[in-house]
């Protein structure tokens, strides 16, 4: 119970920071809407539904990356990672709190992005929405870990995409596969990705934030 209370307190803190600073979610919204608009006008008429879905997934992954880039900024700017790491709570609670916060930001961006996609291109089915929800979990789990790795380095804006994007490729593959037809199998793949990478990230966080 204490672990969950720590996670709740840390996630609540991030939501409160965003509510006051209003830096991450507006940027994510602007980015995803701009990207979908550009895709809408850039794609020739008669482009297939599958191609459009592929672009949706690209937009979502880069929107998530934008949120992840900002995820550890408060901790980095004020040296707060040290204060959090020294706290006697389980360090993975820091990771899980961050995952929940970024998940909320990404979810908010998608609440706007998915209807916008439906309006610009074509309707979305339940499978695609389910795939997006499952992909969000994996993206945030891996992204919060790589974000913590990047925050310790100097070229962090460069390091995060380099670490995150290769790990996000399976999510795009699973997402496009699930939305483009072979639903069940790819949804299962996304569940497996979430379970495996979620567990790995949860276990690895302690070592990522321990300076050697």
């Amino acid at each position: 119970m204490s672990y969950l209370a720590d996670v709740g307190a840390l996630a609540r803190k991030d939501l409160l920071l965003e509510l006051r600073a209003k830096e991450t979610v507006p940027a994510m919204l602007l980015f995803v809407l701009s990207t979908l608009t550009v895709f809408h006008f850039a794609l020739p008429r008669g482009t297939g539904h599958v191609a459009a879905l592929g672009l949706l997934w690209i937009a979502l992954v880069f929107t998530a990356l934008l949120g992840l880039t900002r995820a550890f900024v408060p901790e980095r700017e004020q040296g707060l990672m040290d204060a959090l790491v020294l706290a006697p709570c389980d360090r993975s609670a820091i990771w899980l709190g961050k995952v929940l916060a970024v998940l909320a930001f990404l979810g908010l961006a998608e609440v706007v992005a998915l209807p916008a996609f439906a309006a610009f291109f074509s309707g979305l089915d339940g499978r695609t929405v389910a795939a997006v929800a499952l992909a969000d979990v994996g993206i945030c789990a891996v992204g919060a870990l790589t974000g913590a790795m990047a925050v310790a380095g100097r070229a962090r804006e460069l390091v995060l995409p380099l670490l995150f994007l290769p790990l996000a490729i399976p999510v795009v593959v699973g997402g496009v596969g699930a939305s483009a037809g072979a639903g069940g199998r790819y949804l299962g793949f996304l569940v497996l990705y979430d379970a495996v990478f979620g567990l790995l990230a949860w276990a690895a966080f302690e070592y990522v934030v321990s300076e050697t």
Partner: protein
Amino acid sequence: MLTARNLSKRFGPRLVFQRVDVSLGRGDFLLVTGPNGSGKTTLLRVLAGLAAPSSGELDLPPRRLVGYLGHEPMVYRELTPLENLHLFGRLYRVPERGERIGMLLERFGLWEVRRERVGTFSRGMQQRLGLCRVLLHEPELLVLDEPFNALDADGARLLDEALAELADRAFVVATHDPERVERLATGRIAFA
């Protein structure tokens, strides 16, 4: 409480310090002095458990007994003092959190601004709040890097009083102003 033998730390080819021995018990006060870039902060980070030494033996108390103040006050600028201290009080398992937080905010002259955002504070007020955060869980080992940084005369006096009152704890303090705490020091490491 803290024992270090033959500690060294390097970053790649650069040796930051070597052959450092420290033994601290209750009531000990280790003063660390030296010019900028001499390795004071790195030593303090190692002694706080935030960085591993490259070689040597280090025996530290559990994390819940360590209080660390770095160059920054280490508080969230978009939160209020109350929100900051409640968050860290929760993570540090501080019993009767509300009372303890109220007492610290009163003591460091921040009670009146307890519901204002830290980002609107002067650097000195932020430092006071950073000190509240460090003292919140009543640590047995206090590792303070330039604690007088940015404090005005009033703030420095409050910190002097707090240091004198906590004389039964162990301290590691790095400062450019050693005269201020020299009377409390029981040991000294001077970096060249």
